[in-house]
């Protein structure tokens, strides 16, 4: 409900628009799979086919770099690709979210945060489906004897990791959506940036763990400790490395709060600058 007095506070206002948020996320999901034969199956097929391609192409290449992983490569790649696809899909959606909804931005009032948030929300649904497939893959590799499942209390960290990733994605998404509204170049930069990040975040290519300068520089990317933490919980059955995770968490929260505050401050200009 749009009440003038709600415009003062961010959270209470957003709570009022919770239903709208889900309607928009549902719209994105519906539209993504409308008029398609396979429908939601694509949520499984996309990361799975990426995994197959990378397994095919990189098994030798990765081995040649000496950056070995003690996991079966397919499992390593898929466990990285699932959160990565969530990250890149949400971000790609966010960048365009305001511009693509120009009609709504200029014709209807509601908190503009709803647009990037709905993108993260709709990507989250695909993420959940892909995560279920990961479980199936783990069962397959365990049954084949290529990998052993070690149940560990760290599994309980999984929801926390997802929340940290969502915070990071949402914060970045708001910043990029806003930036793209003013300068359309941002979308291109994001496309290139995501291509680069795919190879330096430990998604399909392991990050060197030798303490070298390169390794430490790569470690500044919060996705590195985050993805490592996913694998620790799910595949290795051990607690993630504390400092890295703490760093990723603090940075993600800072990005979320900073991005959101900036977004809110600029939001009143959106309708006339779009």
């Amino acid at each position, binding site marked *: 409900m749009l009440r003038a007095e709600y415009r003062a506070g961010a959270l209470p206002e957003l709570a009022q628009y919770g239903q709208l948020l889900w309607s928009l996320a549902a719209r994105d999901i519906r539209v993504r799979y*409308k008029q398609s034969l396979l429908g939601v199956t694509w949520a499984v097929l996309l990361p799975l086919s990426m995994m197959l391609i990378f397994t095919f192409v990189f098994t030798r290449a990765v081995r040649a770099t000496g950056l070995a992983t003690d996991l079966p490569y397919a499992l390593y790649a898929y466990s990285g690709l699932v959160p990565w696809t969530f990250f890149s899909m949400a971000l790609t959606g966010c960048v365009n979210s305001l511009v693509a909804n120009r009609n709504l931005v*200029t014709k209807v*009032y509601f908190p503009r945060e709803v647009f990037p948030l709905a993108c993260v929300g709709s990507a989250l649904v695909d993420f959940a489906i892909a995560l279920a497939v990961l479980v199936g893959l783990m069962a397959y590799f365990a049954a084949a004897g290529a990998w052993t499942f070690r149940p560990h209390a760290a599994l309980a960290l999984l929801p926390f990791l997802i929340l940290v990733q969502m915070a990071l994605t949402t914060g970045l998404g708001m910043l990029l959506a806003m930036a793209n509204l003013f300068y359309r170049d941002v979308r291109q930069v994001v496309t290139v940036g995501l291509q680069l990040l795919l190879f330096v975040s430990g998604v399909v290519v392991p990050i060197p763990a030798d303490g070298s300068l390169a390794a430490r520089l790569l470690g500044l990317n919060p996705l590195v400790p985050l993805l490592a933490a996913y694998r620790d919980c799910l595949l290795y059955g051990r607690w993630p490395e504390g400092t890295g995770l703490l760093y990723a968490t603090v940075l993600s929260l800072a990005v979320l709060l900073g991005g959101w505050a900036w977004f809110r401050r600029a939001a*009143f200009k959106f309708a*006339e600058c779009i």
Partner: protein
Amino acid sequence: MSSPAVQFVHVSKRFRLGETHDSLGDLLAAGVRRLRGRRGSTEDASTLWAVRDVSFAAEAGEALGIIGPNGAGKSTVLRLLAGILRADEGEVRTHGRLSALIEVGAGFHGDLTGRENIFLNGAILGMRRAEIRGKLDAVVAFAGLERFLDTPVKRYSSGMYARLGFSIAAHVDPEVLLVDEVLSVGDAAFRLRCVERMRELVQTGTTLVFVTHNLDQMQSICRRAVVLEAGRVSFAGEARVAVGTYLKAMSRAFALRPTDLPVNARGGGSGVEFVNLRLLNADDDEVAFLRSGESLRARVRLHAHRPIRRLVLELNLRATPEENLLSFNSGRDARFFEVVPGLHEFTLTIAGIPLSGGQYFWNLRVWDADGGTTELDTPACAPMVIDDQGRATGALTLDHQWERTSPSHAAPHGAETAAAALVAPDGG
């Protein structure tokens, strides 16, 4: 409630023209220009005050019309009220759940079905799912789209699209409803239902702010209206008076410059020179914008170079620059004018101009009835716009009325007739 539901207090809104950057390249270029100290444009030149020092208020449950020529700032006012834009100066106050219908179907997604779009659009307009579910049937019935509920809206006709859009917004049950010129869509029957629905909402206590060009519609819903001209309030008060002010403003917007005709406007003869042709209303104000049925005077000024004993004037009204629609010939009316060298003025008075809405032109011909020479034949000039409030179709609309001429009770089937008493306008 004592406080106004909607209030503008000395509100100004400025838009920047020109220096908006669309790509980083433009930004860099502008930055370099600024570094070199060459400012592309001054504040004044690049700033448009879309709304300047506007104040008005609508009490709770009141219907307020906002009218004015294109570019007067009407839509900006509405978007400021809706919270889409923020005022640069002054204060915008609104109280209560507010729903803005600035464009029908904004937020529709073509790939979604009518039903899915109702839920999506309802949420966009601030309704809860349960609320939408409860109103679904009413929304669909109002739009008349029962059969197409599960068809993607990309397959809808533009009329169906608009009907669905208005229907959703009309069922939000807001405390404040903002409507921007949306009733120009759909057929006459649907427009009528929209007006009825708005009146219904106002009767049940909704505050309505209605931006429109349709003066009759506005008057039928709103008791008070604000007239905007170039971003400022030129009148605020009774709707009927506001309409008068607005029509005057429109006439000014269409104002004619002294007509300077091209050389070929002169006819074969050399005895008469065209000076000007002006259109005047009953108050002798120069007009180019009239309401259907208003009286009109066409005043012709000619310079005679030689004496002519029997001069004939003909004024032709044209809907297109080439084709005559109506002809007024002084000779056929047995009026011949004797002129001596010098300036002469002639006036044609039409008591009630029976034209339907649209743009019209005038053509002037002058003959010397004795010599048989055409002295003057101008190209189409003196454009004028007739506003008939969308009532008539076809070229003309005559003074008429409808009534029942049988007893209103127990009329036998098929016997009911309605007589149109056609009264021809007496001018001409």
